[in-house]
């Protein structure tokens, strides 16, 4: 009886609250307005695990859009695929004063295929609300429910995923039966979560975030895990597309992936087995054997992505890749692993976060389905070798900046194992240039530039190498912004050894490189290697400065000056040394030759936020030096 009354009171209270629910934009606390183009007024996200193959994901979000930059932040996109179905979508749009402007219903949503831009096929779809609101501010209330037929991975809670969005309140709840065990990982949460039991006997985990000021997109920020509020949940026992298993650590998760997803996928046709055996018969060094097999795989396959259901985690059969000649990262790694096995070489399928800008690692103390790419690890004795299997042109053992220097999960027959990929140091990522130019008294420049690209810079010119010569001749001008440049010769050579190098040789002329003014002659000192980075000032910066990869540029230019002229400028001599980099320039005369030496180095690392202004200043000074003009005068 008591309970009934209480429920009744709650109902009345609920009605009162909803009648008073005021979404007027003027009620947003003033301190949430700076840098915000939208404000989440309230958000409730609930994951309710009913059965391992039946999860309800419920979202109710009220968000006020302040200006047109906030239109995209309303997130009126509901994604689904073969394992997710949309149960309903409903909502309202309110005007500035919180009065209903219109109702949102599911039929106002367009249903479209989602394309990641590189997959041939994927089963992802989106329901997208396309009607618009044109007067600001306005408020959107959206509520939808998804039925999710798997428990292997749960959508993380990221209440402030978007930049320029402030949050008044966001609540995440995770409901499950008492015997359904979970583990979770909190990132930057202001308050710990709570656990309770509801009236149906379900466990209820709950987290709340409140009054979050809008964050800005600050250049050179570390990855989001380091400052963004986030919660990840992992199951103990799970079900996914006719597969099931359980894990509480990386060892067990890796074991499941190996046993359930990989083990039975390695058979290759007999002809290929024979071919591989013959191919490697005369080689004794296992590393050289592996190199031969890797190169065979590269010329036989190319990358094509197809993602459907468990196919998002499980590779195609090796025999399928053998026949079709293509596959995604999973398929090509599995195929390479299978070929290596034929030659008696063990290798491990490794899950990694591939990203050029951020070195994102598998979370050491929290096992869950992470990563977006697969690479292969060859655990030779005292010499671990790593292979990227989706690029047909990379040298054996070269990972590049997509997967270097981070923790990956190796799926071995004995289970999962966290490993670290190799790091490329600033001094090893080297662009070295040697140029010899002659300037005549009409201002024409002619000469050669020889460049070498090493370390991570090795594949800097990969896109040029792929091009036809006519296209190369057009595009090379982007790299060398020399006015009136006329390329007489351009060629590339690649040394694909374990320490790979790309060489670029150019012969060029450029009219009017130097400008004659009376008895004076002016020319730019450095036109072959200038900093091009356009950094902008960030007032009130919040995030530390993160430099993922360092590199070194080392240039030497020798100019033979036009006859009858002598140097009229002060010689340029600069040396700057900072924790994040250094820059030295010298300019010397030797007979009729002017010799210019330049070294620029950026170092990787994370630095405190005050360093950002230093970095701006550093780049300004480098830029000024790179843009220096030399004045000559007639004798």
């Amino acid at each position, binding site marked *: 009886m008591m309970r009934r009354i209480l429920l009744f009171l709650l109902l009345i209270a609920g009605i009162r609250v909803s009648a008073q629910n005021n979404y007027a934009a003027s009620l947003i606390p003033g301190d949430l307005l700076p840098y915000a183009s939208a404000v989440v007024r309230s958000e409730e996200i609930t994951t309710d695990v009913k059965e391992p193959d039946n999860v309800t994901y419920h979202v109710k979000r009220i968000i006020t859009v302040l200006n047109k*930059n906030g*239109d995209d932040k309303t997130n009126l996109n509901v994604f689904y695929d073969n394992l997710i179905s949309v149960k309903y979508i409903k909502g309202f749009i309110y005007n500035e004063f919180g009065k209903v402007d219109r109702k949102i219903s599911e039929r106002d949503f367009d249903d479209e295929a989602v394309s990641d831009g590189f997959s041939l096929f994927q089963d992802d779809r989106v329901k997208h609300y396309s*009607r618009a609101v044109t007067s600001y501010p306005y408020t959107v209330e959206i509520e939808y429910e998804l039925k999710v037929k798997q428990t292997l991975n749960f959508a993380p809670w990221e209440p402030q995923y978007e930049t320029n969005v402030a949050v008044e309140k966001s609540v995440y709840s995770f409901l499950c039966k008492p015997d359904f065990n979970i583990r979770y990982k909190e990132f930057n949460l202001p308050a710990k979560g709570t656990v309770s039991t509801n009236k149906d006997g379900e466990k209820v985990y709950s987290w709340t975030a409140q009054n979050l000021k809008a964050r800005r997109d600050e250049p050179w920020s570390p990855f989001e895990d380091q400052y963004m509020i986030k919660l990840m949940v992992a199951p103990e026992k799970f079900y996914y597309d006719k597969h099931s298993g359980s894990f509480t650590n990386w060892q067990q998760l890796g074991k499941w992936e190996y046993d359930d997803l990989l083990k039975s996928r390695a058979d290759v046709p007999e002809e290929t087995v024979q071919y591989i055996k013959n191919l490697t018969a005369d080689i004794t060094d296992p590393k050289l054997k592996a190199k031969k097999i890797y190169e065979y795989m590269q010329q036989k396959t190319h990358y*094509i992505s197809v993602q459907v259901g468990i196919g998002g985690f499980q590779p195609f059969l090796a025999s399928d890749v053998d026949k079709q000649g293509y596959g995604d990262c999973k398929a090509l790694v599995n195929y390479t692993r299978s070929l290596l096995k034929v030659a008696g070489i063990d290798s491990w399928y490794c899950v990694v976060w591939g990203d050029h800008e951020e070195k994102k690692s598998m979370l050491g103390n929290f096992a869950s389905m992470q990563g977006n790419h697969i690479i292969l690890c060859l655990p030779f004795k005292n010499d671990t070798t790593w292979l990227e299997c989706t690029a047909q042109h990379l040298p054996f053992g070269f990972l590049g900046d997509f997967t270097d220097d981070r923790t990956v999960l190796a799926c071995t027959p004995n289970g999962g194992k966290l490993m670290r990929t190799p790091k490329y140091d600033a001094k090893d990522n080297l662009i070295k240039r040697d140029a010899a130019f002659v300037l005549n008294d009409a201002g024409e420049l002619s000469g050669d530039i020889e460049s070498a690209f090493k370390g991570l810079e090795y594949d800097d010119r990969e896109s040029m190498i792929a091009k036809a010569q*006519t296209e190369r001749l057009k595009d090379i*001008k982007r790299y060398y912004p020399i006015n*009136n440049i006329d390329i007489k010769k351009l060629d590339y050579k690649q040394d694909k050894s374990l320490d790979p190098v790309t060489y670029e040789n150019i012969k060029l002329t450029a009219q009017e490189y130097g400008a004659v003014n009376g008895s004076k002659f002016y020319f730019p000192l450095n036109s072959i290697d200038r900093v091009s980075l356009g950094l902008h000032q960030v007032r009130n910066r919040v995030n530390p400065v993160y430099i993922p990869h360092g590199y070194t540029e080392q240039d030497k230019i020798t100019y033979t000056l036009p006859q009858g002229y002598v140097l009229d400028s002060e010689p340029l001599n600069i040396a700057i040394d900072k924790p994040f980099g250094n820059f030295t320039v010298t300019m010397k005369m030797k007979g009729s030759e002017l010799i210019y030496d330049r070294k620029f180095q950026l170092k990787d690392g994370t630095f405190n936020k005050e360093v950002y202004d230093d970095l701006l200043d550093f780049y300004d000074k480098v830029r000024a030096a790179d843009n220096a003009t030399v004045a000559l005068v007639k004798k």
Partner: protein
Amino acid sequence: MNKPNFMYNMRKFILLFTVSLISFAASAQDFPFGEVSQEEMDMQKYDKDTSAHALVLNEHGRARISETSSEDVNLIFEHHIRIKFFDDKEFERYGTFDIPIYSSDGLVYEKLVDVKAVTYYRDDAGNLQKADLDPKKIFRVEQDKHHTLVKFAMPALRKGCIIEIKYEIESPYYWNHFHSWMFQDYLPKLNSQFEAIIPGFWNYNASLRGYLKLTDSKATIDRECFTYHGAKSDCSHLTFTMKDVPAFVREEYMTSPNNYLSGVYWQLAEFTNLRTGAKEKYSKDWKDLDRELKEQYWFGGQLKRKEMLKDRVTPVIAGKTDSLAKAKAVYTFIQKSFKWNERANDGSVDGIKKALDAHTGDAGDINLALVNALTSAGIPAEAVLVSTRENGSINKLYPTINDFDYVIARTSIGGKVYLLDATDPMLPFGMLPLRCLNDQGRVFNVDKPSYWMDMNTAQRAKTTYNIELTLGDDGKLKGNIIRYSSSYSGYLRRKEIKKYNSLDEYVDHLSSDMPGTKILKSDIVNVDSLDMPVGETYQVEMNAYDGMNHDRFGFNPFIIGKLKTNPFKLARRDYPVDMGIPSEERYIVTVHLPAQYTIDNPPQGQAFAMASQGGRFITDFQNDGSTFTFSYVTQINSSVFGTDEYNSLKELFNRIVTAEKTQLEFKKK
């Protein structure tokens, strides 16, 4: 789109075409499927273009109007192509196929039938092998209710392989567009042949686009090739062949590649009304088109009832008496009522009222709503059909509305003509976005005959800079930078500013354009007054020199808005340079030096004008003791430059870039 009604009693017609007819000549044939020669397999490179990574060995297309088993009339298009890969560089672009399938209503789809695809390659042992495409590996992606993509990746691609693909598409959409054909692509082709088989009931005009010439064209008659409900008709059988087609190379400052790629396009001219047997014009002259447009729901249907939006615009113009003020209010109202979905269109498919209620629409919805809103407010207005720069140029050989993809509004108030596009709320009244400035537009009025008008209006992009700096004893240059962006430059500047949430963030980002310059204070005016120039004033400080312990300083007077490199780098250009909008830039910088300094190398003023008067660049230098002034003017007077003006234009930009290197020297007296 209406389909003709067929009857059993049909007269026979012969399609008339501009090439002469040869009766009973042997018709062209598709090349055989499934046979590759040793020679083709062994080919190492293409001698006519050694830089090509792949080559189309042969390509054949055949389009015909035909009856289907379900007694519908369909356009059947067969495509057969064979491509040689010399290396692996083109696998990504040409080794996978995306075949679009269209449906106008989401119910009746085009049909892809009979896909045959084979890869011929040498296996590890060097033996020739064939790999067929596995039908299970053909994917259908339903992008939305109108568009489906059929996708597949060719199997077993290896260096030196040849792929061969053949498929057929049955389409119910043949009515005003017969199948077009592109002879040219980004790969070179040895041979590209297209056959068009058109029953006498339809007569299409063909037009060729691009700079290349056909190697051969033929026309024959196929007797009684078309049967419908027992009635028979002859067909015109046209064959176009282009051999040794070079790869198309994209160049900068061009409009759509479709303007330049060689291809054949069709437009229905007349057809037989099968109920009466009489020949009817489909679109012969503008009078017919005017009438037809007027009747179409998506076009005339939105304009005929001139007071359709009266209840909506009455409050908007309340209290306004003069026409211009009313027109501006209506324009602003439509701008603010819509969010453009970024799509071009020349009509309103679901009607302007529905679009207005949804607050979103394409260019057709928005601008036809604008025309009607203007007439509803009592201001005479017309619709102007245009082709956007991306869409390409308009075929004026014969009247057609198929080349248009966009519509704008035109009104004349007090003798002045205003062209209006309400898709972008940041456009001031009377300004058009760049995308509309292409060739000519056709002005349409429900009461009067339509007519052409030029789209390159008097619009200009105009920017002025006024900079005043003082060199202090601490080696710092301090002062103000003032920039005024008017007309089209004002529009672009507003768009840039509005990308940010606040002026502060905009100013922060501005600093990346002026390295070495710190902005201490900023003042930006007229961001929301669309008819006024945007004014920006920045109080700046440049850490120019580390102290004053030098005898001389170098100074580059180009502080902001540098061009840096000449955008024109080609030795020769085959296509016109299309900049869209003439422009003008005026720049003046005044520098006050400490008394003990003077200018060591006062530069000479220079002037360069293009022979055609299409553009000029002038610099000036004035020195008055310790104060000097440097200024320049750049004017581009035309929006399009012909290939003959290319060198002169390139030279103009060369002068600018060279001048930007000007290094002034301050020297201790």
